[in-house]
């Protein structure tokens, strides 16, 4: 009898704990509705703060005093850079007057990993306060009401950016975060940027009889094939599985991925067909080598070992390329704009930071962290440590000077400086929800097909892919 009483008591305790732990999370408390500061003569009109805040006045009305808000920032950078980021955030934690505590967390090894994790977290109603996100990913989160519009925060008199600050930001960088699908909304804010550039082995190029990298596609293909020697496993170009690889070449041939008002994919244009036909030709003639999906950063390693002449990759990888070369074949290398048809083009990418819908206080705290990371000192530090571009014009000289002082960069330091001039040619891929599966189609169904099937028709491939992509676009169009 006594045993059964103990049993019943134990079960009761388990049930009580089980039920309480399964209980629904506490709903977000409404934010402060009083205006900042103490009333003097007449009481100010109370401002109701929506979640997310809809105007700068609402943002101004949020009071963080004594709330000890903490925010988590999900990103995909490697451990070394994570530590640099956390060190910057530690400084923020010590110095910010609002008592905000910011913590960085590695949420995966790639932007895709972070996207997968964030998507699952949104479904579970447990998103982080902020994370890195491409414009198309942010648009997708927005379709789930996952991320918030940052315009009210940016325009806030109390917490926003000044006119001088805004002017100091590279305008091309800021423009990329204006969503074409959610008109007038800013779904992310840049704290870094990068661009697709052409890495080349300057010594090898010279041996082939060229003083400078080719500027047009025809010459470039000639050089690629001239460099290739499959018997010694040396190739002119390393093909890496990434839709940005295709997009950059389409841009260089005068095309785009999506039309101007982001209502239809158009990568089956002549520029797309020419890009695909060139890849097909280079593989048929064994001029290029495919980097298998499983060989992570294989193009970088092979470049460092002097096995490939050209690689199209992100400028943010410069420090890794430098390391690969110094540990590998130790040759002179540099970066350049990709070849082009009529006018140069630069595929500008690099994710922004998006803020997720949590509570107005946490949203504001996340914005203040973003603002801090965008300050001149921080953006310069981050750019120097990672190879990303700083987001402010005032930081450019400092970053370039640091690169030039460091002998390991050599000629690449000058080229890094040039990327800022190339900013005028900036283009972006497709800042719309659902672009990730389209990227998968471009890589897996389009580009992969021409690597092995030399008889397949590039136009037919692209037409089919665009039809499928437009279906996805329709599915992701805001209703």
């Amino acid at each position, binding site marked *: 009898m006594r045993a*059964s009483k103990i*049993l*019943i008591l134990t*079960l009761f305790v*388990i*049930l009580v704990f*089980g039920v309480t732990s*399964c209980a629904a999370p506490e709903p977000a408390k409404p934010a402060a509705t009083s205006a900042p500061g103490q009333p003097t003569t007449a009481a100010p009109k109370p401002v109701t703060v929506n979640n997310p805040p809809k105007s700068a006045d609402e943002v101004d009305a949020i009071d963080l005093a004594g709330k000890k808000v903490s925010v988590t920032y999900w990103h995909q950078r490697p451990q070394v850079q994570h530590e640099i980021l956390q060190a910057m955030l530690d400084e923020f934690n010590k110095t910010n007057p609002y008592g905000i505590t910011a913590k960085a967390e590695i949420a995966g090894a790639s932007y895709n990993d972070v*996207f*997968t994790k964030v*998507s*699952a977290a*949104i*479904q579970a*109603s447990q998103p982080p306060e902020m994370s890195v996100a491409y414009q198309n990913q942010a648009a*997708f989160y927005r*379709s*789930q*009401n*996952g991320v918030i519009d940052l315009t009210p925060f940016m325009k806030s008199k109390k917490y926003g950016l000044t006119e001088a600050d805004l002017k100091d930001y590279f305008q091309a960088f800021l423009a990329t975060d204006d969503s074409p699908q959610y008109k007038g909304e800013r779904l992310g804010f840049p704290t870094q940027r990068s661009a697709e550039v052409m890495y080349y082995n300057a010594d090898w190029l010279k041996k082939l009889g060229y003083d400078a990298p080719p500027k047009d596609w025809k010459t470039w293909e000639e050089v690629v094939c001239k460099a290739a020697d499959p018997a010694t*496993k040396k190739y002119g170009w390393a093909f890496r599985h990434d839709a940005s690889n295709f997009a950059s070449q389409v841009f260089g041939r005068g095309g785009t991925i999506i039309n101007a008002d982001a209502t239809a994919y158009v990568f089956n244009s002549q520029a797309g067909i020419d890009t695909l036909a060139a890849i097909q030709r280079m593989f048929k003639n064994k001029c290029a*080598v*495919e980097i*298998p*999906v*499983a*060989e992570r950063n294989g193009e970088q390693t092979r470049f460092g070992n002097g096995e490939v002449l050209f690689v199209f990759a992100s400028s943010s990888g410069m420090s890794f390329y430098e390391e690969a070369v110094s540990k590998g074949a130790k040759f002179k290398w540099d970066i350049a704009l990709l070849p082009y048809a009529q006018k140069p083009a630069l595929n500008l990418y690099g994710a922004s930071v998006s803020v997720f819908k949590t509570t107005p206080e946490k949203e504001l705290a996340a914005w203040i962290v973003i603002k801090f990371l965008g300050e001149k000192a921080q953006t310069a530090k981050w750019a120097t440590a990672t190879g990303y571009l700083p987001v402010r014009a005032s930081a450019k000289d400092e970053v370039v000077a640091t690169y030039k002082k460091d002998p390991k960069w050599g000629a690449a330091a000058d080229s890094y400086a040039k990327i800022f001039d190339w900013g005028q040619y900036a283009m972006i891929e497709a800042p719309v929800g*659902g672009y*990730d*599966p389209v990227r*998968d189609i471009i890589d*897996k*169904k389009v580009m*992969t*097909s021409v*690597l*092995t099937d030399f008889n397949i028709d590039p136009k037919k491939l692209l037409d089919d892919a665009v039809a499928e992509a437009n279906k*996805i676009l329709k*599915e992701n169009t805001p209703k």
Partner: protein
Amino acid sequence: MASRSAELSTMRASRRSSVQLWRRIQEVSLGYLLLAPALILLLVFEVFPIFYGLYISACDWRLSCVQFIGIDNYIRAFTEPDMWRSLLVTATYSAIAVPVQLGLGLLLAYLLFQKIRGQQLFRVLFFMPYITSTVASAAIWSFLYNQDKGLINSILTQFGFPALRWLSEKTGVWQMLVQPLGIELPGWATGPSLAMIALIIYTTWVFVGYDIAIFLAGLGNIPGELYDAAKVDGASGWTLFRNITLPLLSPTTFFLLVLTVIGTFKAFNHIWVMTQGGPVDATTTTSIYIFKQLFQYNRYGYSAALSFILFAVILVLTIAQNRFAGRRVVYD
């Protein structure tokens, strides 16, 4: 007097039966009370997610059920060629991997059951891949399969064979064999892609150790007297294997068959690490297809519906195996 005594005895009997009933109720209640933690866990972590998944599959799901669409996601799946293709890829993967894995497992188990030197060492060696992390071993195999840097191609080229695009070749293996002769096979006759074969080789390497362990246990349960008696009657080698080993091992074989078929239909990790479903769709099994629909296309309701379809396929296959193969199992 007699009626009074009868009344008393009826009352006693009635009291006894109500006491018994009360005791019975107490016993049953205690039983259910003791079952309660397990039942609650099952309800919360098994039954509820299944029904919730079913609900999601009937919705246009975007963070919540935006619109209840009934069986639309299922209709969409059945009319989607990519879904059928993924099922075909899965069936092909299973149809090759299961017999190869079980056949090789049985053969090796039979060899290891004999009195040979280093028997324990071989058993450990064969079992090790099974206990190794799938993601880590799949990543290493990807390097082994690398077209121009991998060990496998280095060996092949040493012997004068061409280097193969193991994980990125979508061409069927039969077509690859006859290609040098200038023969073009029709689509249906080209065979599974080389990438699929590469995955099957890896799967076999991983799971054969587990099959060996189970087969060895089964072999150990076969009474030695049966072999002795058969030998007295003049049986040996293949006759012993066919007439004694195979029938008496059939419960083990059946168990492994069911398990392996389910495993191959659910296979995901190594395929994702090694090919991500490529080249093109050559290794996009249903699990990979579901994962992509969920995490790349963010079609939550649709991927939930696909999961139920895959579940139904596995269930039907298991029932069919029970019906057809189960009849041939010899239990004593």
